[in-house]
């Protein structure tokens, strides 16, 4: 028994290592492909390790002004979309959690249905709409689109959170002279931190990796986000697999850092609001 108990953490660590390898290995292949000349990537027979190491790929990509433009777009778009989602979803989630009113069910139903639309099927209509508004090639067009497509999830999660906070908390704040907006800001929001963190990470990742809408709406190369821009490293005319993969790995870093920073809150947040 004691021996078994002492061995157990090692078993767990071993299984953990296997899982880590499973999830990392495709991206390890990506890293090794980034560190070899592009010709070696498609050489036959394939080799796991580069036949010739090429250490400066990451430097090349990071000093490429096109890459830096795409990176800038991705940051602007992901951050702005996330802020808009929070600003739009918090009041709506709070109000629908606290009050019954005519149209409440209809509103929640419409929100739920928007979650089921894929941007892919609406992209033609979106292009025509933004074209008529002369907003093609603007950051605003993809920021607004990303925000709208992530609203449903945000409202859904936050509503669960707000309704799990006892009403007395709010009443106490009212007695202390807080208005409704101040109560929401100073009392309710800190209590829903895990829900907010969940919303932030989901929206940020979705906006950071959005592809189809950006592909259609952003034709000006300097304004493309990373997901769209980096594909021009490998086209019919030129094949820079090394640079494509180096750029892709750099694009993963901000998300993993953001995630590592707020993971603790996230794990409490995904479902806490909806648990009965």
């Amino acid at each position, binding site marked *: 028994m004691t021996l078994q108990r002492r061995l157990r*953490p090692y078993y767990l660590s071993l*299984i*953990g*290592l296997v*899982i880590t390898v499973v*999830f990392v290995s*495709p*991206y390890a292949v990506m890293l090794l*492909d980034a560190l070899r000349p592009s010709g070696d*990537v*498609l050489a036959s027979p394939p080799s*796991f390790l580069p036949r010739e190491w090429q250490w400066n790929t990451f430097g090349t990509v990071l000093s490429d002004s096109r890459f830096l433009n795409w990176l800038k777009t991705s940051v602007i778009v992901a951050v702005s979309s996330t802020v808009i989602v929070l*600003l*739009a979803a918090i*009041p*709506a989630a709070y*109000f*629908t959690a*606290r*009050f*019954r*009113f*005519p149209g409440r069910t209809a509103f929640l*139903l419409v929100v739920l249905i*928007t979650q*089921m*639309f*894929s941007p*892919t*099927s*609406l*992209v*033609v*209509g*979106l292009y*025509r709409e933004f074209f008529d508004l002369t907003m093609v090639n603007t950051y605003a067009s993809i920021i*607004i*689109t990303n*925000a*709208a497509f992530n609203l449903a999830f945000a409202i*859904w999660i936050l*509503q669960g959170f707000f309704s799990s*906070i*006892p009403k007395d*908390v709010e009443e106490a704040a009212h007695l202390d002279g807080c208005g409704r907006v101040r109560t929401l800001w100073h009392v309710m929001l800190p*209590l829903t931190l895990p829900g907010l963190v969940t919303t932030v990470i989901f929206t940020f*990742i979705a906006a950071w990796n959005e*592809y189809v809408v950006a592909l259609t709406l952003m034709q000006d190369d300097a304004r493309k986000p990373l997901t769209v821009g980096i594909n021009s490293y490998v086209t019919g005319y030129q094949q820079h697999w090394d640079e*494509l993969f180096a750029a*892709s790995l750099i*694009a993963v870093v901000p*998300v*993993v850092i953001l995630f590592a920073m707020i993971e603790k809150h*996230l*794990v*409490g947040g*995904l479902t806490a609001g*909806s*648990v*009965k």
Partner: protein
Amino acid sequence: MTDQLDASAGAAAPPAAPVARSPRFRRRRHESGYASGLSAIPWLIAPIVLIAGVVVYPAIALVQASLSDYSITGLRRGSAGFDNYIDIFQHDDLGLVLWNTLVWVVVVVALTILFGLGLAQFMSKEFRGRTVMRWAIIIPWAASLVITARLFTLILDYEHGILNQMLVTLHIIGEPIDFLGNDSWVMPSMILVGVFVSLPFTAYVLLAGLNAIPQDLIEAARMDGASPWRIYRHITLPLLRPAMLVASVLNLIYVFNSFPLIYTLNDRNPGFTHDTSITYSYKLAFKAAERSVGMSAAMGVINVLLILVVVMIYLRIIRWREVTQA
């Protein structure tokens, strides 16, 4: 203010306390005020405007397009009535595409939930290296789907692919397999990649659900002599319902709408042999011989109705009021 402290201390309270508190807590959270529709407007206006502009308006445009006749270059020539829908329903590949969609959605979602459950269970344990593992699991979620798909087209390649090379070297297979070209391997390969990229999100949702289960409940059952399997079956699984609901509904929607993965992995293959209804709809307008914007739009409308019906049936089965009725 004491109540606030009470509520937030609930999780850390001694074993008996939450049980005693729960009825009071439950009653309180269902109290909600009544408000007029007018007073709701300032609180709801931002989502309403965003949804109307970005989802409803293009959706109406989609329906209009599905009822229109287009030239091969995409110019509208006038109304087509329901011709586009009739063309879709008479299209030779529709049955195959719908079958592919069914297989893709059911198998990917089922495997994702199953493996996600095991993964979440494991992630909730304490051991050395857990943090590193948790970060590693994030990577497929953090990486762009298009790029992950392109990466897998290389890894699974017949000639240049490292996977074939490894399997042959280890004598697991004698001959390389054309994972993305051989008709009996294309779907399984796409499903493998589909599950791989869906797992991180799913595992985290289920992990959150597991963490929300009060440990003293499981402890109490263990004291009463319940076997681990019975505890899992009768305590963990029922309490995991809300997390399973979130994970399965969102996965149904994401997997059904999955475009870049199938489009990229299936790029080499002609026709619609391995397409799902989403890539089928796209190819009808931009890639296939049809080049018909109208048919593509009609399929787009059918797609939205399909996923709507599937999710509604699913929510009805598991009683969706839990989601919308706070």
